[in-house]
């Protein structure tokens, strides 16, 4: 209902600068990366205007040597600190780099990322070793999620990577992963 009212109310035209500022405010308050589409919908603007505003915002942050950056991640936009300040930020937050994933977990994650949706037996086939505890770790860290059952004997659970995976590994979407065949050349 509310939405309809908003739609019907005549809205004053925004200047490009105002739109940039609004986009900045919304990206800031969002707790997750926001897509261009969501911004366009909420602000009732054309996709193109939003894209232009984001581009402007990005270059503003860059040109004024801000401590922050506007970056594209997991299909959306996000404000984040500049990488070169990581030491200061970490000592301020008194955090340590989070525990690194074990070799087994990383391998399991790589198999899931490239073969998703994939079942436990299929992971075993590739890694040659049981991966149960690695899968549990990855589920606990929300890097992978259950993706329904495979219609095969025993209907085993399938796994795939999550949105958190994209965020934690700095990916916009899965297509940004280098192709697995590319690693063939590196092998040997």
């Amino acid at each position, binding site marked *: 209902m509310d939405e309809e009212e908003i739609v019907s109310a005549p809205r004053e035209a925004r200047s490009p600068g105002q739109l940039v500022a609004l986009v900045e405010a919304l990206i800031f308050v969002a707790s997750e990366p926001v897509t261009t589409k969501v911004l366009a919908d909420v602000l009732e603007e054309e996709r193109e205007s939003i894209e232009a505003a984001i581009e402007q915002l990005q270059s503003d942050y860059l040109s004024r040597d801000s401590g922050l950056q506007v970056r594209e991640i997991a299909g959306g936009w996000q404000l984040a600190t500049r990488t070169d300040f990581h030491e200061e930020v970490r000592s301020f937050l008194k955090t340590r*780099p989070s525990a690194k994933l*074990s070799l087994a977990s990383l391998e399991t994650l*790589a198999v899931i990322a490239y073969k998703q949706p994939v079942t436990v037996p299929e992971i075993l086939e*590739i*890694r040659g*070793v049981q991966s149960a505890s690695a899968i549990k770790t990855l589920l606990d860290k929300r890097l992978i999620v259950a993706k329904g059952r495979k219609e095969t004997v025993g209907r085993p659970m399938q796994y795939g990577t999550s949105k958190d995976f994209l965020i934690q590994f*700095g990916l916009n979407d899965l297509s940004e992963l*280098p192709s697995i065949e590319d690693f063939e050349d590196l092998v040997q």
Partner: protein
Amino acid sequence: MNEQPEQFTFDFRESTAQIVGGASEDLKIKIGDFAGPLDLLLFLIRQEQANIFDIPIARITEKYLEYIRLMKRLDISIAADFLVMAATLIEIKSKMLLPRDPFAGEEEEIEDPRQELVDRLLEYEKFKTAAGMLYERSTVEQAIFTRGPIESDDNNAEIDASVFDLLTVFQKIVARHVDEIKLEIEREEISLADMMRTLKKRIFEFGEVSMLKFFEEMHSKREIVTAFTAVLEIVRTESVKLLQATTFGDVILKKI
């Protein structure tokens, strides 16, 4: 013997594992966690500077078994998968020793017994390299921070739960329930005599007592059973009768 500091390092960039230790026969190695038998096998092949497409199977099998024995000696639990691989290696080794079938036609392609293993190793190594790539990506990402919580966050988060959370939570509830049942058993039981005394006192005080309400006061199945027995005993021994107004309705204990 001179204890040498033992080291095991793994460097993703070089993608090699190193086992560093004394050169003596009694070599003690701090065993790092090879991610699996294929990982160990790749390491041994590289250590022996062997060609992956022409694995010196006898030598590699020997090294592999040596490693397994070492793990056993150091009391490291060996995953079954490592043993399965040992069996596979031995099988391939013995196949390699078999003389070629003299009746096999020339044109018939003779499958190399090592082929399947080589394929698996190559396939595995791709993912191992991919794991290294992920590792580097996550290291870079760890240098980036997002904003701290702000006021509006409380009404602005997705339903932050997965089916895995549902299951975990459910299991916890079930576990908690088991604890409660245990607690119940530990609680001091009310004796039949006490139960009869309580009930009798109430009937004579109020004239009648609802059996349903009385049972609802009970904390456990056992107490309900005791209460029920108490009702039966009182009806049998005292001047009390049972009244039921409707079928399946409440039962009233009434003083005669």
